[in-house]
């Protein structure tokens, strides 16, 4: 869920930029190191980012409305790792603002925090946790993608509540308000995206006959 251009007051916009900046810088340093060691990784990273962007423009059926689009947060985090996803995610968000008028420039910091930082880290954490406790790949992928999406949506609702607290019940009340109004679209979307990501990982697993390719998919870009 992208916060639109101009929705957040200037102080919040700047604040979220400041919160997201360290993650972006850490990811950028990591990419700089990867690129210095292997210049060809630029291409892989660029193709991965473009893939994430195109993925977010595909239409998927949604339970409530006519259709919606996946975020790709969970898939990206599982395949590329969360620290690289922070940078790729910010670039994807920038292109979404400039090519689709989706999201915005003043709200880029806030959107980056929910979609390129919280979502991927949660998805990656759940994926590792799921595999760690012996859950099957399909279940781990499902929960990683679904909870990654839900974490993004909850973060966005909290960001909105922080900017516009309820006159009677303050921050908590506003969080409930924003959370419930967008829940109609976001909760079904998270479940659909979880299922979708399972289908994708399943199909991808069938496409990697040799170790070489598996290594590419599992972490060359990490």
């Amino acid at each position: 869920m992208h916060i639109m251009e101009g929705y957040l007051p200037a102080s919040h916009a700047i604040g979220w930029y400041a919160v997201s900046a360290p993650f972006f810088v850490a990811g950028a340093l990591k990419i700089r190191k990867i690129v210095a060691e292997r210049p060809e990784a630029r291409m892989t990273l660029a193709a991965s980012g473009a893939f994430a962007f195109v993925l977010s423009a595909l239409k998927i059926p949604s339970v409530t409305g006519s259709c919606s689009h996946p975020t790709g947060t969970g898939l990206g985090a599982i395949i590329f790792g969360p620290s690289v996803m922070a940078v790729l995610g910010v670039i994807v968000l920038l292109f979404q603002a400039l090519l689709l008028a989706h999201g915005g420039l003043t709200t880029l910091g806030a959107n980056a925090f929910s979609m390129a930082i919280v979502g991927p880290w949660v998805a990656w954490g759940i994926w590792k946790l799921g595999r760690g406790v012996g859950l099957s790949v399909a279940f781990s992928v499902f929960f990683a993608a679904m909870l990654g999406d839900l974490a993004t949506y909850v973060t966005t609702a909290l960001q909105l509540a922080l900017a516009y607290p309820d006159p009677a019940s303050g921050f908590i009340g506003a969080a409930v308000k924003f959370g419930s109004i967008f829940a109609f679209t976001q909760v079904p979307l998270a479940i659909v995206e979880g299922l979708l990501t399972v289908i994708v990982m399943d199909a991808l697993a069938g496409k990697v006959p040799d170790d070489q390719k598996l290594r590419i998919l599992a972490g060359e870009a990490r």
Partner: protein
Amino acid sequence: MSIASLDRIASTGRWRNRPLAEKALIGLGFLILAVTLPPWPGAVFVTAAMLAVTFGLARVSVKLWLAIAALPLGFLIPGSLVLLVQLGPEGIGLAPGGAQEAALLVLRALAATTCLIFLATTTPAADLVAGLRRFGLPSEIVEIALLMYRFVFILAEEATAMTVAQRARLGHSTRARWLRSTGQVIAALLPRAMARARRLEVGLAARGWQGEMRVLSDRARASWLSLGAILAAQAAVAILGMLL
């Protein structure tokens, strides 16, 4: 709106060859004014100025503009209606001053959105990203962003072709099939993207690529006169917005 449509508008538009500095100053300058000035009347002036520039000078089609603006408005409507109600100990009620707060929010968000759409419809995203170098973004990141930009349209076209092929074969006939088809598109797209990246890299390496794309830019440089005029207009909007 497909992925390429806004970029096509920007690349074929009347302001395509205006200096980047001018367009960036107009779009970003007014964007800053839109979020910092008091929404009434500041944001109204910003909206009026941006619409005049977008339609009057850059000659963006009104129909296209409305199609682009539909998406952010889909967020704005529920996002502003929320401010009308409050959750108190007695349950849900109308918020005191909620209508005013919602109206101010709508004004500010609309003003900012006109600035974003101005930038998006007059300046190809690649120009703007290339311009980020001047703001001190590391060249590695800018290069990756520009390469990504080149990949986006190729992959989008592949994804569209796959989706069309699936639809023609009843791939979207039920919700479950639709979801499965989309999953298959994504799964087919990733290895193709990686293979394309590898081919491009091999081709460039054979030509002695050192990891930097140098391209000739023949864009006109911004004149101090026009930059000054833009700044003067923005100062006027800022003063009017604060005084009135």
